[in-house]
């Protein structure tokens, strides 16, 4: 039987067919010794092992999204393995995210196939969220989209479980300036607390335009200056490292906890 939990550091986790796009990316960054919070993936095959796969496929192909969702919501995830992995992670709050194996994960995210649950505590809740991530794959919108792509029989949805950091500060780095279209400067945005507020646009972050070394060229500080010059330099260094690692400009989500910089996500910048 295939393993029902793979750790970011495990080799199979680097395979997008096993861990999905998000999981494989976290595994690759872990391998590169980048400061990624620890975590594991419930691999893509686990869903099929937890339900009547044949029936689920039949419902999906028939476009019966309500029945398919009901079937998935009643699924029995590998509780013991998930609970053991959660304990090994140290308990405490985790983030649970779906991680699609489809190539066009950007489009998939807009089709509502990407769920994120933050601050999940306790093995029971983690299992419940894993099942909800699976179910999101069978929403009407997701099925409509996959139907048009001709990939309805694809049940490849992995789920990432990652330790949540108790962030003092968080934000994003663009390793190139997408506004001025400049490769010789970066944009760093930061808020106090969790970074989700920056990404969702709920809070206006402190905004720094820096050179490649992290020295500030311009700044706008509605929060009064969240980052120190030393932190800006270290973030710029992280950005440069990621750009080199992935071979193209990156859009990076980061957090600072206990003085340590942690890397939450890194994606290519597509708008330059």
């Amino acid at each position: 039987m295939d393993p029902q939990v793979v750790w970011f550091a495990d080799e199979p986790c680097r395979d997008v067919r096993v861990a999905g796009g998000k999981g494989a990316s976290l595994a690759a960054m872990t391998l590169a010794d980048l400061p990624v919070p620890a975590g594991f993936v419930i691999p893509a095959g686990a869903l099929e092992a937890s339900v009547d796969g044949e029936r689920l496929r039949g419902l999906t192909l028939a476009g019966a999204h309500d029945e398919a969702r009901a079937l998935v919501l009643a699924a029995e995830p590998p509780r013991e393995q998930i609970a053991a992995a959660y304990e090994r992670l140290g308990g405490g709050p985790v983030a649970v995210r779906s991680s699609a194996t489809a190539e066009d994960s950007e489009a998939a995210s807009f089709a509502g196939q990407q769920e994120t649950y933050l601050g999940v505590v306790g093995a029971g809740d983690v299992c419940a969220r894993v099942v909800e991530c699976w179910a999101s794959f069978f929403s009407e919108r997701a099925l409509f989209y996959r139907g048009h792509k001709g990939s309805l029989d694809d049940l490849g949805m992995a789920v990432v479980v990652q330790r949540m950091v108790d962030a003092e500060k968080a934000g994003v780095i663009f390793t190139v300036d997408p506004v001025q279209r400049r490769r010789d400067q970066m944009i760093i945005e930061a808020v106090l607390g969790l970074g989700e507020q920056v990404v969702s646009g709920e809070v206006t972050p402190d905004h720094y335009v820096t050179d490649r070394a992290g020295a500030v060229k311009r700044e706008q500080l509605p929060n009064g200056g969240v980052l120190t010059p030393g932190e800006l330099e270290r973030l710029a260094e992280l950005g440069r490292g990621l750009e080199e690692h992935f071979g193209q400009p990156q859009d990076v989500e980061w957090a600072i906890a206990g003085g340590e910089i942690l890397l939450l996500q890194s994606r290519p910048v597509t708008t330059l």
Partner: protein
Amino acid sequence: MAGAEAALGSFYGSDEFPIEWLEGERELLWIFDDLHCPNPVSPMFFDIGGWWLTCDHMFRRFGTPFASDWVMKTINGYAYMAAVAADPEALAEATEYEARYVPRVPRDPGYPARIGPYLGAVLPHYALNFLDWWRERLRPEIERNFAYLDGYDMDAAGLVELAVLLEDAIDIHDRHWKIHWMLNFAQFSATMALNGTIQEIKGDVDPDLPGRLQSSVDDRNWDSIEALWRMKEEIKGDAELNAAFHAGESAAGVLAALEGSERGRRFVAERLRPYQEEFGNKAIWSHEFVYPTWRENPAPILEAVRGYLETDYDYAAALAAVKADLESAIRELMDGVPAGEGRDRLQAALDLSLRMNPLTPDHHFFIDQGTNARVRLVLVAIGRKLVQAGVLDDPEDVMFLRYNELRALVGSGEAFDARAAASARRDEREAAFAIRPPDWVGTATESQLAFPYYTLWGFPEKFHRKPPETLDRLTGLAASPGIAEGTARLVSSLEEFDQVKQGEIVVCRMTNPAWVVLFTKIAGLVTDAGGVAAHPAVVSREFGIPAVVGTSTATERIATGDRVRVNGSTGVVEILS
């Protein structure tokens, strides 16, 4: 000589807008060319791309008594133009490639008075014949030049080969701009002749009528709209394509969705790419090299198609409406004119002018857009070679070098620190966005203000107008570069989209993908929420619309109808009087 005439006003610089003057420059009236270059101009475009580079040829060819050249000067990053009188004593020291330069005027004080009748004699000949020259000789010449540049394998060529190709591209550019001025004079002459005949035969007419008689219903612009509309129709009738166009939040998302399916890839290969080749030789600002063309980045095409999908744009109806208006304008003009010699002359002047209507959109397509875009593509190809050679980090850096610096770099990659130079010039250009350039500088005289072309820039009215004052100012994040001034329109829901007029500045809390229709008609955007990677910022950049996001308070402090100025490069929004 200009100096002998009384000055109506002068501005030689201030602390906020310092000006360095060369000999002879102060005596001229310099007008900010916001019509073509509203943004700070890049060094490379200033050196080799400008429309002004062939104006001495135009004035010499036509024998204009009112000017011998049109010169340009960058002041604090902005392009200012001055017409030089056809006066042998006028010694304007314009900077072309930073070299001393004096316009060519015969050493004959009587020249302007004597040459005027020549212009009067030849102009009607241009008006009568230009369309035939254009169709039979000039447009084919332009298309041959394009075929040469488009067919050139720039990836396979070496740096020196591309440097020489750039010289060919500059020659082509200059030749096309010479054609541009002939076309302009011919069209100007036909329009003047028509307006003169209207005045003579009919007296005063509705002031909108002459403008309505200029509408074109058959040109490359309509061709490009028709092709977009065809794409929209195909998508509308295909569930899979429709899903892809609704999957992405931005054009990049739509493209990713298209690339994710066989049907989508076929659409990209058979529809999108050919459209880019044929109609993509343009950028959001034609008179600049720093903006990617649609050929390089199809985002504006995808966004336009998305807008058409949302409104179910009807090409045939839009074209029919323009045709109907033109026909009604023609009827309005000819109605009540009695048969006879007068009517025949009016009809002849009208026919000639109507025949030339497509020249306005077509010359934009072939010259302003198509020619400048192709010079940019050669420059980008050179930039790539310089990146490969380790001399630059970004091919686009080439636009921030002077023409002769680039040539020095072709000679030796170690000629100077090109990275540092490009970086510093990019800083200068960004800083220039914070400056508000005055409408004019130098010395204004009656005759300088009377230069016939200046009406296109709103002069002499602008000279007498008091510039608006800033009543309030709010700050957000610079999300999409550029500056836009216009009337504010607060929008809070989809139901209010119909009220938004072309050229308005939309002020809202936040945008989402359903708002794409708005982006096709607004001049600028201000939001309360969002950062530089949020939806309003990304889509504004795809459309090339100046945007300030994350102001927190814009929807409280700005009211519909306020005059606002959005600076998407500095993040400042001003409310003007």
